[in-house]
């Protein structure tokens, strides 16, 4: 790889991570504060299953078309089908580990535009969404806003899982938000703290993966995991306010 290619590789990864982490941290805060820890893994697993259906139908893994089967994946059971696919084990591993290393600019642009639209939508209606957590039962259209929140989670899951894999997608959503929630209840500050820590951890992970030739997705999750362990230990041993 020459200098230009290295720059291109890092810029694609870092732009994608920077955009993705904003919305994931925010939605993650909703998930953690409402104790819906499982919801994302369920959606991730269905999206991963959908991608496997796509492979079975001959659609190339990780392309824009492969998003479509993920949307209808809720109809089937992932493991049973994976068992019947030719070389299913490889795809099970791929859906866990992802293929973010091979992401291209067109895919980054599609993902980034969708994320930016969703971020604007959530910013405009932030009071409605935050009231679901802070003041449950006070919003007259609670079901509608709940539905919109989970739809957002579903869309970002379908977008990110074929690129990043189940584990990294889950880590993007949960770890920065968990770290932030340990230290503040203020939403804007929590999104900023979560995003910053998540971004720094992921960039360190990308560098470690590239320069030390380590597996990409797991290295990023482990990098986030190290920050999480430090945050928990600091919280455990820091004096609680009276």
């Amino acid at each position, binding site marked *: 790889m020459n200098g230009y290619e290295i720059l291109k590789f890092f810029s694609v990864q870092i732009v994608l991570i920077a955009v993705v982490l904003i919305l994931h941290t925010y939605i993650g805060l909703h998930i953690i504060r409402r104790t819906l820890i*499982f919801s994302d893994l369920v959606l991730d697993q269905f999206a991963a299953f959908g991608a496997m259906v796509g492979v079975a139908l001959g659609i190339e893994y990780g392309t824009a078309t492969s998003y479509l089967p993920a949307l209808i994946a809720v109809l089937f059971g992932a493991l049973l089908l994976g068992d019947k696919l030719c070389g299913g084990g490889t795809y099970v591993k791929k859906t866990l580990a992802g293929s973010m290393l091979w992401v291209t600019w067109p895919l980054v642009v599609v993902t980034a535009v969708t994320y930016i639209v969703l971020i604007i939508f959530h910013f405009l209606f932030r009071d409605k969404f935050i009231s679901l957590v802070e003041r449950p039962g006070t919003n007259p259209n609670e079901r509608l806003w709940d539905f919109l929140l989970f739809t957002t989670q579903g869309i970002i899951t379908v977008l990110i899982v074929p690129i990043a894999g189940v584990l990294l997608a889950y880590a993007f959503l949960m770890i920065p938000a968990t770290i932030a929630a*340990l230290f503040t209840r203020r939403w804007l500050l929590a999104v900023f703290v979560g995003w910053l820590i998540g971004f720094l951890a992921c960039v360190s992970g990308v560098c470690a993966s590239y320069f030390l030739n380590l*597996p990409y997705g797991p290295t990023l999750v482990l990098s986030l995991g190290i920050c999480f362990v430090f945050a*928990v230990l600091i919280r455990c041993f820091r004096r609680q306010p009276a």
Partner: protein
Amino acid sequence: MLEIVEILGLPFLACVLMAVVLGYFGIHVLKREVIFVDISLAQIAAVASILAHIIFKSHNDSLTVYILAVGFIVFISAFYALVRKKITQISLEAIIGVTYAVAAATALFLVGVAPGGHIHVQHMLAGTLLWINASEIIWITIVFSAICLCVFLCRKPLHAVTQDYQEKLEIGLYKTLWWDFIFYVLLGTVIISAVKIAGIVVVFAYLIIPAAISFLFARQTTSQLFIIWVAAILASIGGLLFSYYLDFSVAPSIAALLGVELILAAIAKKMFINTS
């Protein structure tokens, strides 16, 4: 018929053992609202097994693997017990969920740097239930019996810590932290043995789904246990026959049938039992 018994007899025995022990722990796990804990503990045990394979070149069934896995479980149990007491900002389930993701990533990381590692990932997910032999059955019978004895002897404090944790902490129940730790160690030890034969998915299914079904219909522990064991054994028989006749993997078939049972139980509860 004889052929079916010959092929599926030992896997069925293993299923019954798992149904009995995991079913009981399922009641605690649901009451504590730590649904992720078994997946997390199983994943940590799997990391230990991969590490033992890489560092000591140990075989999957060796004592080294087992000791390392128990060591990891003891460490993480202490972590969970400490976090449950010290962290109030977020639920323990969130911490467990993140621990699971980090452990799963560690497993993938290790298999990524060690050759031929993807086989471990496949085993972690699906297990090798169909190929269980008599010596493995004897081993898990011994381990599960020892765990059952410990659970029986410690049933009162374990129940108290599961039922009224905050209350016990507030009145300063001595050793609350300790009993919490003991609970996770016992559960973890069961999970190490179960995951080795059945894989993460089916162990999770045996732990959570029958207990969830029992919670729909009963409040007494004895009635819950009866429902759990019946549901788990029926799904085991159905899953084994389904996989035998339709050539699917055993573990996912059992897990899928347990899922079907839960859906049917929820429908039955809605249609036939007045909840008011």
